[in-house]
C-alpha cells in the first residue's frame, strides 16, 4: 500500500502522465483540495473505488448506509466548512438515491459535486443493468450536470464542476462517468477552471444602484434588514456587522441566515417568516425601507405577497440576477456578492441609531414572551417542551455548538431558541424541507468541524427516515450528539390538522420502536428522558461523553409552534395562539 502511494506522490511532479480515467478522477479531487468524500460503491463505479483504495491515505472515503445519506453528509460538511462537499454513487438506484440531497443542495445553494458511475458507452440507451438516465433526471435540480463518455474529458469537466459548484451562488453539480471512461487510459494533465465564457459567477456592482441604495438608507426613519444565507455563503459576516452597527438598523434573519450574526447582538431582532418572531413579522409591514441582504423572499418568509411590505421601499442586495423581482418587486437592486457590496456601501451610509424604532421590536418581544416564549422556555405544566430542551443545550454549550436540525416542529423550535455565537453553525434543510436530513448532515458537519460540538436535533419521524446512518457513526466513530424530541407524532402536520383540518389526525400518529435499544445496537451511548428533573443532567451527560451519544426526550405530545402565519395570510396577521 505504502509503496503504491509513494509512486503516486512522486509521479504527481511530472506534468503529463498516462493513467486511467478512474485514477484521473481521484487526481482531480486531490488537485481541488478534497480530502474527504461520502459514497456507496456499486458495479458501474468500481474502477474509481479501486483507485480510492490505492489513494486511501490521501483521500478518505466515508461509507454511508444509503446514497441519500452521502449527499446530506456532503451538505453538512459543505455548510460548516464553506468547502465543496463530494458524494459518490454507482449508476441506477445509486444515482437516483442521490436526487433528494441534490434537490436540497440546489434550493439551499450548497456547493456539492456528485460523481456517479454509468454503464459503458456502448450500452447507453439499451436498458442495461442498473442503467438510468441520471443526467436527464437531475437536470432540473442541478446547477450543472454532464455525462463523460471519454476518459480524456475527465480533467476539464471535473475542473468545471468544482468551479461551478463553488462560485457565484453555489449549488450542486452532477458528473456521470461511463464505465469505459473510467477504464480507458489517457495523458492526464490538470488545470483549474477559473472562468467559463457563458457563465458570469458574480455580477458587477452598479455604482449608481449602490448610491441609490445608500440614499434610501440614509433617509429612512424606520429601516429594517432581513438577511439570509447570502451573508454566510459570501463570508460577509464582518462586513454585515460593520454595516448594521454603523447604521443602527434592526436586523432579522431567515432560517438559513441564522448564525451569521450573534444571537445576542443588540440589533438582532429575530427570525422572519411562518414561525418567526412577532416583532420582525409585524414590523415588516410598518418599516419604511426594507433591505434584503442575500435572501430570496421565499413564500415561508413573505406570507401573502399582495400584503407584504407594500408601504416600504425595497432594496435587494443579491448575487443571483434571477432572484431580483422574482417574488417581491424591488425599488433598488444591487447585484454582487454580499461581502463586496456591504464593504462598498459602508462609507456611503451615515452613522445612525434608530433607538425608538428598535424599541418597537423590543415591545413586540415582550408581548411574544408573555404569550408564547414563557410557556415554552419556563413551562409550569407537566410535559417537557421542545423549547426547554433547547434552553438547556444553550446554557451548557454557551451558543458555541453547531446545531443541525431536521424538518418539522423541532426544527422551528431549534431555530427559534438555539443561540449562536459563531457563523456557519445552523445547519438545516430550509428550502426543500427534507425530513431525514439532520442525522447524515450532522455526520458531515462533525467531520468538517471535528473540534466543535455538533448536536443534531431531530423529530421521531425524520429520525426514522435515515436512521440507518447510525451505522456510519458506528464505523467512523463520528462524535455526533443526537437529540430526538419524541412526541409520537408527525408534529407539524398534526399541528396543521389541529388548526385547519378539525383535528382529523390522518396518518400522523407514530408507533415508535425502542430508540434506546436501537442506539445500543449500534454501540452508541443512549438515554431516555421523560421527566423535567432529569433533563439537565442528561444534557450534561451527553455533552461530557467523548464519543457519540443518543438522547431521547419524550416531549408533550400535542404542543404547537407559535407564532404562526397561516398559509396565505399576511405577515401582519401573525398569530400568537
Amino acid at each position: 500500500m505504502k509503496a503504491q502511494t509513494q509512486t503516486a506522490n512522486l509521479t504527481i511532479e511530472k506534468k503529463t502522465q498516462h493513467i486511467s480515467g478512474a485514477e484521473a478522477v481521484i487526481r482531480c479531487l486531490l488537485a481541488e483540495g478534497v480530502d474527504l468524500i461520502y459514497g456507496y460503491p456499486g458495479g458501474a463505479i468500481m474502477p474509481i473505488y479501486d483507485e480510492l483504495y490505492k489513494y486511501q491515505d490521501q483521500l478518505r472515503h466515508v461509507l454511508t448506509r444509503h446514497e441519500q445519506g452521502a449527499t446530506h453528509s456532503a451538505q453538512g460538511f459543505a455548510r460548516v466548512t464553506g468547502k465543496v462537499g463530494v458524494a459518490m454513487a454507482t449508476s441506477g438506484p445509486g444515482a437516483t438515491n442521490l436526487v433528494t440531497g441534490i434537490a436540497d443542495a440546489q434550493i439551499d445553494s450548497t456547493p456539492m459535486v456528485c460523481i456517479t458511475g454509468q454503464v459503458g458507452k456502448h450500452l447507453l440507451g439499451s436498458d442495461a443493468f442498473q442503467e438510468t438516465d441520471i443526467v436527464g433526471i437531475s437536470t432540473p435540480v442541478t446547477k450543472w450536470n454532464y455525462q463523460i463518455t471519454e476518459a480524456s474529458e475527465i480533467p476539464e469537466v471535473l475542473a468545471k464542476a468544482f468551479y461551478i459548484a463553488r462560485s457565484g451562488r453555489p449549488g450542486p453539480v452532477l458528473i456521470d462517468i461511463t464505465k469505459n471512461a473510467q477504464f480507458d487510459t489517457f495523458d492526464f494533465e490538470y488545470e483549474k477552471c477559473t472562468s467559463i465564457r457563458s457563465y458570469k459567477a458574480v455580477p458587477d456592482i452598479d455604482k449608481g444602484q449602490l448610491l441609490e441604495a445608500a440614499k434610501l438608507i440614509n433617509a429612512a426613519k424606520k429601516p429594517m434588514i432581513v438577511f439570509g444565507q447570502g451573508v454566510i455563503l459570501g463570508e460577509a459576516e464582518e462586513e454585515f456587522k460593520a454595516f448594521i452597527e454603523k447604521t443602527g438598523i434592526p436586523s432579522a434573519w431567515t432560517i438559513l441566515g441564522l448564525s451569521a450574526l450573534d444571537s445576542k447582538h443588540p440589533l438582532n431582532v429575530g427570525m422572519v417568516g411562518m414561525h418567526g418572531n412577532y416583532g420582525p413579522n409585524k414590523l415588516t409591514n410598518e418599516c419604511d425601507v426594507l433591505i434584503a441582504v442575500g435572501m430570496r423572499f421565499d413564500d415561508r418568509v413573505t406570507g401573502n405577497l399582495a400584503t407584504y411590505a407594500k408601504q416600504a421601499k425595497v432594496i435587494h442586495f443579491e448575487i443571483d440576477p434571477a432572484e431580483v423581482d422574482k417574488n417581491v418587486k424591488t425599488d433598488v437592486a444591487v447585484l454582487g456578492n454580499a461581502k463586496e457590496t456591504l464593504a462598498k456601501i459602508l462609507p456611503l451610509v451615515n452613522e445612525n441609531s434608530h433607538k425608538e424604532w428598535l424599541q418597537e421590536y423590543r415591545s413586540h418581544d415582550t408581548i411574544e414572551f408573555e404569550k408564547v416564549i414563557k410557556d415554552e422556555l419556563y413551562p409550569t405544566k407537566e410535559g417537557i417542551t421542545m423549547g426547554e430542551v433547547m434552553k438547556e443545550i444553550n446554557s451548557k454549550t454557551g451558543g458555541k455548538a453547531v446545531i443541525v436540525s431536521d424538518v418539522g416542529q423541532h426544527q422551528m423550535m431549534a431555530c427559534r431558541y438555539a443561540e449562536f455565537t459563531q457563523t456557519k453553525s445552523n445547519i438545516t434543510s430550509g428550502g426543500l424541507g427534507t425530513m431525514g436530513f439532520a442525522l447524515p448532515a450532522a455526520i458531515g458537519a462533525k467531520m468538517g468541524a471535528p473540534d466543535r460540538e455538533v448536536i443534531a436535533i431531530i423529530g421521531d419521524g425524520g429520525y426514522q427516515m435515515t436512521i440507518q446512518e447510525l451505522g456510519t457513526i458506528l464505523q467512523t466513530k463520528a462524535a455526533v450528539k443526537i437529540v430526538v424530541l419524541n412526541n409520537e407524532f408527525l408534529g407539524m402536520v398534526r399541528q396543521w390538522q389541529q388548526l385547519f383540518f378539525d383535528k382529523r389526525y390522518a396518518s400522523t400518529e407514530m408507533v415508535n420502536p425502542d430508540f434506546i435499544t436501537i442506539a445500543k445496537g449500534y454501540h452508541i451511548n443512549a438515554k431516555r428522558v421523560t421527566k423535567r428533573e432529569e433533563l439537565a443532567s442528561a444534557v450534561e451527560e451527553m455533552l461530557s461523553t467523548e464519543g457519540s451519544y443518543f438522547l431521547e426526550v419524550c416531549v408533550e405530545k400535542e404542543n404547537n409552534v407559535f407564532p404562526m402565519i397561516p398559509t396565505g395570510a399576511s405577515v401582519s396577521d401573525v398569530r400568537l395562539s
Partner: protein
Amino acid sequence: MANQKSYTISVYTENNVGLLNRVSSIFLKRHINIESLTTSQSEIENVNRFVIVATMDDSQARKIVGQLEKQIEVIKAYAHTDEETIYQESALFKVASDSLFDERQIQNIIKDSHANIVTVSREFFVIEKTGRRHETEKLYQDLKPYRLLQFVRSGRISVTKEPMNISEMLTAF
C-alpha cells in the same frame, strides 16, 4: 392570467448534449406550454440559438429569461413580443397528384398563395409555403378539400429588429 400574449424567447447557447432538456425543463417547471421550438446554429460559430414561442404574461417572460440566463451554458436570453421581431414559419403540403390534374382550381390556389412546388411525382406533389401563420393556415384550409395526404409546419424562426450584440458579449467574457 391577465395580459397573456405570445412571446418569442431567443436563447443563445453553447452547443452541448442535454441543453435542450435543461431549457425545456424551465418551461415545464412553471407549467408554460411551448408552442413551437426551433434550434439551429446562430450567426456566431459554435453558438446555437433556440427560438421558442410561448404564451405568458410580461412578468413570466421576464422570469423565464432570468432562469434561462442562469443556466451555465446559456450565453444570453431574450423575450420579444411579435411587434419586436420579424418572424416566419414554413409549411409543407403533400397532395395526391391526380388532384392537380383533375381539379383546375388547385393551380389557382398555388399561384395566388405564392407557394412553391418542391417536387412532383406520378403519385403526389409537395407544396412549400413560408410566411406568417395566417398565410400557411389559409393555404391549409384551401387545400384541405383536395385530398391533403400530409401536412407539417415548422416552428417559428425569427430575428429581432433591435441588434443582439452577442459577439461583443462573448469577447467581454
